């Protein structure tokens, strides 16, 4: 009988704790939603067509970690994906009110121009040529081009590129920049980053050119390689918006500014890149005291 009494008390206590905790959590959730709603009260409203739909349609990458990829549980994951979820929370109060479609690099623009998606958050580098066909939000992530080389290899910097071979992905800014500025350098262009990495590892290319976020991870895990000191093609990513959709651009820019003010990019960065890399890449995101903008002109034609 005593044991039964203890059992009942324990269950009631546990139940009360759970209820309180759940209540606090959902209150916090409601609180944060409420605080988000309050913060957005004075900001531009969501365009009516998206509001009536009740969901965002956002295009993301599905094969470009750490920005957009498919995780082990077959879910969309990554820096850009987290931004998409946060946008859904801004718009509809719930982070799952977004339908994410996978796009490959060449399919990003058609996805916007044909109205397939509302926004493209897919490592979309700004350039003035693209600007003539679609609109970009304000810059949200500053990527820098880096060069990965083998320790003691024949290429130790951008100055050594004459007559050598570089691996990079098709349709990237690196592809065009090398073709414009390093005419005597050969290119191995691949489909997808892993194939470029393989080409570099197997000696088919002397150096690998890509974003700092991704190459740093490789340099850290592979001690036979290192990044050269060269920093180039610093052109930020932007969110792609259909041309002329002023209302949506206002909404996106205002929310990006809100995220910057409240340092909301930092927790997203911590969730999506390995802990050792959070510090170096915290310089690439928008923070209360950190901002950056697009360079005008086509950077792929600017040779240093």
């Amino acid at each position, binding site marked *: 009988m005593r044991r039964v009494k203890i059992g009942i008390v324990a269950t009631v206590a546990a139940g009360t704790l759970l209820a309180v905790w759940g209540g606090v959590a959902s209150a916090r959730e409601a609180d944060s939603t409420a605080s988000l709603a309050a913060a957005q009260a004075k900001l531009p409203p969501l365009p009516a067509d998206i509001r009536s739909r009740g969901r965002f349609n956002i295009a993301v990458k599905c094969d470009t970690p750490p920005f957009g990829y498919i995780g082990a549980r077959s879910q969309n994951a990554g820096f850009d994906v987290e931004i998409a979820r946060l946008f859904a929370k801004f718009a509809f109060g719930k982070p799952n009110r977004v339908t994410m479609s996978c796009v490959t690099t060449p399919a990003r623009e058609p996805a916007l121009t044909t109205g397939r998606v509302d926004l493209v958050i897919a490592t979309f580098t700004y350039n003035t040529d693209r600007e003539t066909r679609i609109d970009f939000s304000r810059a949200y992530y500053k990527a820098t081009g880096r060069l990965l080389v083998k320790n003691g290899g024949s290429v130790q910097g951008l100055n050594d590129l004459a007559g050598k071979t570089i691996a990079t992905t098709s349709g990237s800014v690196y592809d065009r920049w090398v073709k414009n500025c390093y005419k005597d350098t050969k290119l191995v*262009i691949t*489909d997808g980053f892993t194939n470029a990495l*393989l*080409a570099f590892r*197997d*000696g088919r290319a002397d150096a690998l050119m890509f974003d700092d976020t991704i190459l740093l991870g490789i340099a850290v895990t592979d001690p036979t390689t290192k990044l050269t000191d060269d920093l180039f093609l610093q052109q930020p990513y932007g969110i792609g918006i259909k041309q002329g959709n002023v209302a949506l651009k206002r909404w996106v820019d205002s929310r990006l500014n809100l995220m910057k003010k409240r340092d909301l990019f930092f927790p997203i960065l911590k969730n999506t890149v390995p802990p050792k890399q959070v510090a170096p890449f915290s310089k690439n995101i928008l923070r209360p005291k950190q901002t950056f903008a697009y360079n005008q002109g086509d950077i792929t034609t600017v040779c240093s």
Partner: protein
Amino acid sequence: MSSLLALGFDPSFFSDVWSFVDANADELQAGLRRTLLVSAIAIAGAFFIGLVLGAARAHRVPVVSQLAAVYVEVIRNTPILVQIFFLFYGLPQIGVRLEAFTVAWLAVMIWGGAFNTENFRAGFEAVPARLREAGFALGFGGISTFLNVTLPIGGRIALPSSINTYISVVKNTSLMYVISYPELTTTVLQVQALTLQTVEAFTVLAATYLIIVWTLSALIRFLESHLALPKAL
């Protein structure tokens, strides 16, 4: 013409296409040249592979026949795109590094060779037995019979299906897009990405392939009528 206009057909379409070709003539003809070069090498290779292995299979040559069967079944039952991936990205892991051009002709040659092996095998097996026996009766040995009887006749029987395989080889060179080998499809798509003249680019792309393929098909019909076996056989 007026009915086409009524359908919304814009007569300046042709001049748009022409100016697209004119403006990008260098890249386009380079791409076309590469497509034709890769196709030519692959077709020649597929011809020899089909001939040799088809003969081996038809004559049940031990070991070679079984190995050829494995080769044919693996290639025919797996997608060519995955075969291309393997040659370009998989082989380097065991130390064999091939450049894009090599993978381009090698992949379609291996693919075409497998199908051609079956074409020639069927052709050789379709040669009536009495003709081969006639060869033996005339004092030809095994190989001579093959060269003088089976090959000319079986080769002609296999001609239509062989040429169909060669046409497929030409079409499959378009898949080299995935290893960024700058053949016709890759080149046109790169130009289209830069100039955004989607309609003109795809018109040129489609028209070029159709011209190549239709010419080769007309070749089959011509060869079929001229190389037809006499009714007596």
